[in-house]
């Protein structure tokens, strides 16, 4: 009976707002470490930060939302089951993204309903180039950029999105795409090179030359 009381105390004093310093400071190394030790708040933090992003990312190469949802849920279950065996991670986001991607690819292959192109996932990663300001770029440039980006090989499209949209570093991207950091840099360079060459020269520098 005494023991029960104690355990009950524990649950009552579960503080739910993130009042711990490591959570407030978003110190991801500390959060990951606490998660590995079984800390529930850290788990909830990780979920709240990344569940939505994971779902969006997964949906890019698999259109069946139920399947993607299941993959996200399973991913968290597996993290919990293996938490003691997990290593330290450089970036939680990159780690989760790479796990999710592996899971989806594996699941789709198993079903053999989608024959996956090993070079990349043909299904997804359409890029939109949305004008966000009248400064900097010409309207026509957005159009050209978008067209060019979508004409890139799938792997290059993915890298552009991970790099420009998800804000991941080359190191993190290499983890997700299962390539070397060097190759990630090279891939990004190739994509960006073909992109920047499309840009218009500055108006004041002379006549407008439309490159295509």
């Amino acid at each position, binding site marked *: 009976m005494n023991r029960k009381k104690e355990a009950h105390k524990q649950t009552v004093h579960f503080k739910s*707002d993130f009042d711990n310093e490591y959570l407030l400071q978003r110190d991801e190394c500390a959060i990951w470490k606490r998660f590995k030790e079984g800390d529930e708040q850290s788990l909830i933090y990780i979920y709240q930060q990344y569940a939505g992003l994971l779902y969006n990312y997964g949906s890019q190469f698999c259109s069946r939302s139920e399947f993607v949802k299941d993959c996200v849920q399973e991913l968290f279950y597996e993290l919990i089951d293996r938490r003691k065996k997990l290593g330290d991670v450089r970036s939680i986001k990159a780690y989760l993204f790479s796990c999710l991607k592996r899971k989806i690819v594996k699941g789709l292959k198993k079903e053999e309903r989608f024959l996956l192109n090993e070079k990349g996932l043909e299904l997804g990663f359409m890029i939109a180039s949305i004008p966000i300001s009248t400064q900097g770029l010409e309207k026509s440039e957005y159009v050209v950029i978008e067209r060019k980006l979508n004409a890139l090989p799938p792997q290059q499209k993915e890298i552009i999105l991970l790099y420009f949209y998800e804000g991941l570093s080359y190191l993190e991207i290499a983890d997700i795409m299962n390539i070397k950091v060097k190759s990630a840099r090279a891939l990004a360079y190739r994509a960006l090179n073909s992109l920047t060459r499309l840009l218009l020269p500055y108006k004041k520098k002379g006549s407008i030359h439309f490159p295509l």
Partner: protein
Amino acid sequence: MAERASKILDLLENENFVQWVLSPNQETNHYWSKWLLTHSERKEDVEKARQIVLSTHYKKSFTLPDEDYNQILSDVVSHHRRRIKESNDLIGRKLFYKISGVAAAIVLMVGAALWYNDNTLSTPSEHSISEVIRKKTGSGQKLTLQLPDGSKVVLNAESEITYAIPFSSNREVKLSGEAFFDVKKDPEHPFTVLTRYTTTKVVGTSFNIRSYTYESETAISVLTGKVEVSDHNGHEAALIPAQQGVFDFKHDQLLVTPFSAEAIAGWKDGLLLFNNTPLTEVMDRLEKWYGVQFEITDGTLMEGKYTGRYNNASLEKILDGVSYASGFDFKIKDKTVLVHKKQRK
């Protein structure tokens, strides 16, 4: 021209630059503004590169619907707790099953039910308040109402809610029974729900409260937002989505547990869930849900458990399923369900 392009390329290739554009902080702001001071001719390049980074989006973005988000969170937290308990000692394990039993929100019928007592909802003092509004549902009824401040309340069967007008400056309601609240956000006027022993305080959120006077427990289950709960004995907790606080008055304790949003708040959408539910409880819930009475004519034993999921189904349809699984026959006569042994053919 080619030179320009390569200069922009330089910037885009630089991950420090990209991360500054996407999520600037004090340190990187300082660095890049200083850099621009010494490279003022690169200002236009920086602007172009910035625009390219910021304009890149997924052509289609997919949002995880709130319901799924909450459901998965609640499942994940339950899974986590289960694993933690398992890795603890045996006592811990036993406790978990006890908690998960509560989380399943199994109705604890307390002997001869303490039926409604109008006095439990004392009317606020008449001097200061001009009008008291009282809404009540009978068995088999549900009621959706909007409070003067725009908050939404769905009242389950055999429940009652009272509040005083003017309401918006003093958002306080009294509840007996079960209700789902979707509270309009108003940080200056907290929204309070009083039940017999508990106080639930929120700013803007949605949650379910189950507090039938004939049950020895009151459960507050949070779907969105943050909720503070307390009872007359000083137990209190702050709850976040996917958590529920269960006040167990019999043992004078408060448990915070995860819950399934569907099992707890599904009722407001007409969802009736049985998950390995004892037959006697299935009948109790059907009685309340449809406003009927069961009559067992020939001593048929109501033993066993039933699992099923019904979305706005008719009583007959549900009984078809239950009776088939449990081996009895039934007949619906007005508001009475007659149950008898299956006739051998």
